[in-house]
């Protein structure tokens, strides 16, 4: 009898294991959108206390360093502002002469990055802000050094950003001097810890020197123009003599970034009026 009980218990173990593996495989095979919706639902309910706790811990760890950085940046900004007053007045005068409207102020939202100790952390990042703070999908995520990625999914109090290391990341980009346009995408590499980017779609006739800064082009409506992405570090491959693909060394390491800014587009007053008038 004990033998039979042991066999039955062992069979139950196997059934439970097979069931869990089957559910995992089912989740893997589900359309990405369904899986992400399920993840957002769990994140916003059962895991809310854990995320809140981790958010407070991250804030506590980075607060001292951030205060020092902010003070240093404030001092630098104050010095620059003194010199900029004349430029601002001159700019206003010239805009007035040319009949141009005022530039819209940039709006942004600061967020803590809640890192997870798993190897795929860095392809997606959990951010400690959500729709309650005004986050919505496709907001660009940037760090002080440059582009980190884009908001993928949002919940009430947290959101998920896909970084440039995510296999589905793409951004329209241009060299700093606006000479060469292309598409930036993560490079397939055998070593995920040495993730780099590719600058694709560059015409064969165009040559980009090493060290050239590549920034977002503003095309596509997701990333505003001018966010630094990376520096060219050589030719990665050539496609049948009509396209060169350059290797790009990213400026930001998503695995170690602790604090990011989400850029929010500000609609000019006149376009807001247009939007309201459209039924």
């Amino acid at each position, binding site marked *: 009898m004990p033998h039979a009980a042991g066999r039955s218990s062992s069979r139950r173990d196997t059934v439970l294991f097979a069931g869990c593996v089957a559910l995992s495989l089912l989740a893997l095979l589900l359309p990405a959108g369904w899986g992400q919706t399920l993840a957002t639902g769990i*994140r916003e309910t059962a895991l809310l206390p854990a995320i809140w706790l981790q958010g407070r811990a991250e804030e506590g760890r980075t607060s001292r360093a951030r205060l020092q950085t902010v003070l240093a940046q404030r001092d630098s900004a104050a010095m620059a502002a003194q010199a900029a007053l004349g430029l601002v007045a001159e700019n206003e005068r010239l805009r007035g002469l040319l009949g141009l409207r005022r530039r819209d102020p940039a709006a942004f939202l600061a967020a803590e990055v809640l890192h997870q100790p798993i190897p795929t952390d860095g392809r997606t990042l959990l951010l400690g802000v959500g729709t309650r703070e005004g986050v919505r999908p496709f907001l660009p995520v940037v760090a002080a050094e440059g582009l980190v990625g884009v908001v993928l*999914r949002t919940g009430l109090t947290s959101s998920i950003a896909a970084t440039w290391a995510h296999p589905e990341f793409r951004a329209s980009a241009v060299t700093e001097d606006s000479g060469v346009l292309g598409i930036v995408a993560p490079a397939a590499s055998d070593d995920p810890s040495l993730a780099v980017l590719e600058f694709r779609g560059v015409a064969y006739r165009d040559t980009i020197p090493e060290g050239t800064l590549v920034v977002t082009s503003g095309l596509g409506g997701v990333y505003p123009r001018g966010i630094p992405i990376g520096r060219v570090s050589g030719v990665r491959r050539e496609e049948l003599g009509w396209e060169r693909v350059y290797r790009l060394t990213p400026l930001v390491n998503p695995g170690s970034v602790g604090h990011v800014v989400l850029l929010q587009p500000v609609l000019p007053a006149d376009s807001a009026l247009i939007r309201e008038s459209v039924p």
Partner: protein
Amino acid sequence: MSNGRAQGWPLWLVLPLLLLLHFYVRPRFYSGRGAPDFLLLALLIVALETRPGPAAVAGFAVGLVTDVLAPVRVGAGALAHTVVAYLAAWGRSVFFPDNVLVNMVVFGACTWLRNLILLFASDPGLGALVGSLAPWGLLQVATTAVAGGVVTLALRHRVDVRLEE
């Protein structure tokens, strides 16, 4: 027997402590990828104390949590943790002796295997194997093994009791 149980830290105290370490203490001091994974450690401790079936269910639940917190491919974490928890529980019931060093090796090996399956399920290819052997991955294996050793020492008497029974 009862002395051992009285001296060891109870599991109901150690598991919430590990969760606190994972969600508060670790991000408070160092949240890099080489940090010990206390959530996985809690799962492995539960797996070593239970039968393979319930361990697989616990692994699925913990894996779902990692999928939710860092979703590259939802289901990859669930699969990795289910397999690792089942193997740990099965291995314990079949041949793991009770020894702190052996437990540390088990914790380290399980962390490496979890990373390998997670990377492979997220992005199939040779890169998964290379990625799991990357310096930060091996550092996490080492830190998790050491943290597991400390927890095992705290639970040691309790484990002794289980073997005697």
